């Protein structure tokens, strides 16, 4: 096992200070290890996650070679040559578990932002105190964007949040964590080969959740965050926002209600309806009387743009032709069929919906490594 940094590197180096998992403690599991503390319904801090993974590496005596960066992978002799800082390793099989979120994805229009504006990605952002004075434009309203918008707003800076398509969820539903419902009703167990539009499922934005209370757009707007449409263009020093805000709200509200309907149907069908508080429905996302369409980036109104526009993997070291046009690994449930002996783990909806999350690895690893062992004739 090669790791360029230390164990749990992504949690040590690529997360902001206040981050808590949006998955509850009871759900944060690794094969054979689960949360045993006093607060199963709480949410781990970044440091807790580091400690959890560190402890797991020690307890499982994983043979991790830390500080060893892979700089190149090529096919050779029916297998692979893996080049690292301390030499080349030849192997028959290779598992790419290098992560799905190695680099922040930032739209090309960042090039048009005037130099007077500081631009940050979630990898550069640590805490609001380090931001320049003045307003902040947060671009993207998925988990990262809503969390950073809320935190930056609390620091006293005026925040405008540019909202594109998003996934709205209440933190709890009928007295249970909404992720408990996803788990119990089998949403998260849905397999990659049962999902109609797998490509879409794999690029679904993260839900508007935080390790705490509900953090939807109504919450943010009530706190004073200004909601604007998707950032469509930057022209002549002005940011232009889509006028389609109402529709992205409507889509997210409809999808959330459909999901809650499915939870209720499940509760009825399984005879468990009585275990939960009565069904609830939430106010539609309120459309601002007039949504902001343009913002003069030269006016001093905002000093910072935070790009919460997602993440992507970094495979610049992978010299095997197994990436698609978008730079994502082509695989069938973690098996890279185009290159025998090559596998992927830790990617969104790899084999199930839960593969996107830490606790998805248990089933995925067992099945993918099962395939790998068969390939080796073990």
């Amino acid at each position, binding site marked *: 096992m090669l790791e360029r940094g230390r164990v749990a590197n992504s949690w040590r180096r690529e997360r902001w200070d206040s981050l808590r998992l949006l998955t509850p403690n009871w759900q944060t599991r690794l094969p054979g290890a689960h949360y045993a503390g006093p607060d199963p319904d709480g949410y781990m801090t970044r440091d807790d996650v580091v400690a959890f993974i560190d402890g797991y590496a020690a307890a499982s005596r994983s043979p991790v070679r830390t500080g060893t960066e892979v700089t190149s992978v090529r096919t050779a002799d029916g297998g692979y040559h893996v080049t690292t800082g301390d030499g080349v390793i030849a192997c028959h099989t290779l598992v790419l578990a290098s992560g799905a979120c190695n680099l922040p994805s930032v739209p090309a229009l960042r090039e048009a932002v005037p130099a007077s504006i500081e631009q940050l990605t979630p990898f550069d952002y640590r805490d609001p105190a380090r931001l320049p004075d003045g307003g902040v434009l947060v671009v993207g309203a998925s988990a990262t964007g809503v969390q950073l918008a809320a935190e930056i707003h609390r620091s006293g800076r005026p925040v405008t949040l540019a909202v594109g398509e998003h996934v709205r969820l209440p933190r709890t539903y009928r007295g249970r964590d909404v992720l408990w419902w996803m788990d119990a009703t089998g949403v998260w167990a849905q397999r990659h080969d049962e999902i109609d539009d797998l490509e879409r499922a794999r690029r679904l934005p993260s839900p508007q959740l935080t390790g705490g209370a509900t953090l939807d757009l109504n919450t943010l707007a009530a706190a004073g965050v200004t909601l604007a*449409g998707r950032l469509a263009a930057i*022209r002549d020093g002005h940011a*232009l926002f889509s006028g389609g805000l109402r529709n992205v709200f409507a889509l997210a509200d409809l999808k959330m209600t459909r999901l809650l309907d499915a939870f209720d149907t499940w509760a009825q069908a399984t005879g468990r309806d009585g275990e939960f508080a009565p069904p609830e429905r939430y106010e539609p996302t309120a*459309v601002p009387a007039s949504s902001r369409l*343009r913002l003069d980036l030269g006016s001093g109104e905002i000093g910072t743009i935070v790009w919460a526009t997602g993440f992507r993997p970094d495979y610049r070291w992978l010299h095997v032709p197994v990436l698609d046009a978008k730079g994502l690994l082509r695989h069938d449930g973690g098996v890279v069929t185009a290159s025998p002996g090559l596998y992927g783990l830790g990617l969104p909806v790899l084999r199930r919906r839960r593969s996107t999350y830490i606790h998805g690895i248990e089933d995925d690893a067992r099945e993918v490594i099962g395939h790998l062992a068969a390939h080796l004739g073990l």
Partner: protein
Amino acid sequence: MTTTADNGVNVQALLEARDVLKGAPEAAQFTWRATSTWEAGVHSTTRIQNFFGLGQEQAHKTEAVFDADHPEVFAAADNGITPIEYLLVGLAGCLTAGIASVAQNRGIQLRSVRATVEGDHDIRGILGADPDVRNGFNDIRVTFTVDADASKEDIEALVAQSQKRSAVFDALTNPTNVAVEVA
């Protein structure tokens, strides 16, 4: 400035309207309206006659009816132009009207004004084939050929000013709040 040019635009009336509306912003609020009906397949007809402006209901002399459909390469019946092509109609019509008006105001006699309008459209967007491709036009190019009693620079200035004051140019280049509801 000569006053002999006649492009058929009543600039005097427009200038007077501008002066009056400066002091009466309510009267300047117009609402344009269209009503459409689904015919069959992807064919619809849209009718336009009434609008609101100058503080009251107004009407065109006659009702105009527009068919929108899609071409046979879209496996459609081609009963009319594609909806997005109507944007080209609107842009060409608006910029041309602007050129005629500005030319009139500047005393430039026009002999002919022709425009070619092209919009580049990657249809993978509307087909949902690639989420990174937008649904609408990526680029629009307009080429004007203007024959007028004016220098090349003056004609370029006409074309520039017509964009500066064009409703459709603005609607295409700047975002607009759009509310779509089910009655």
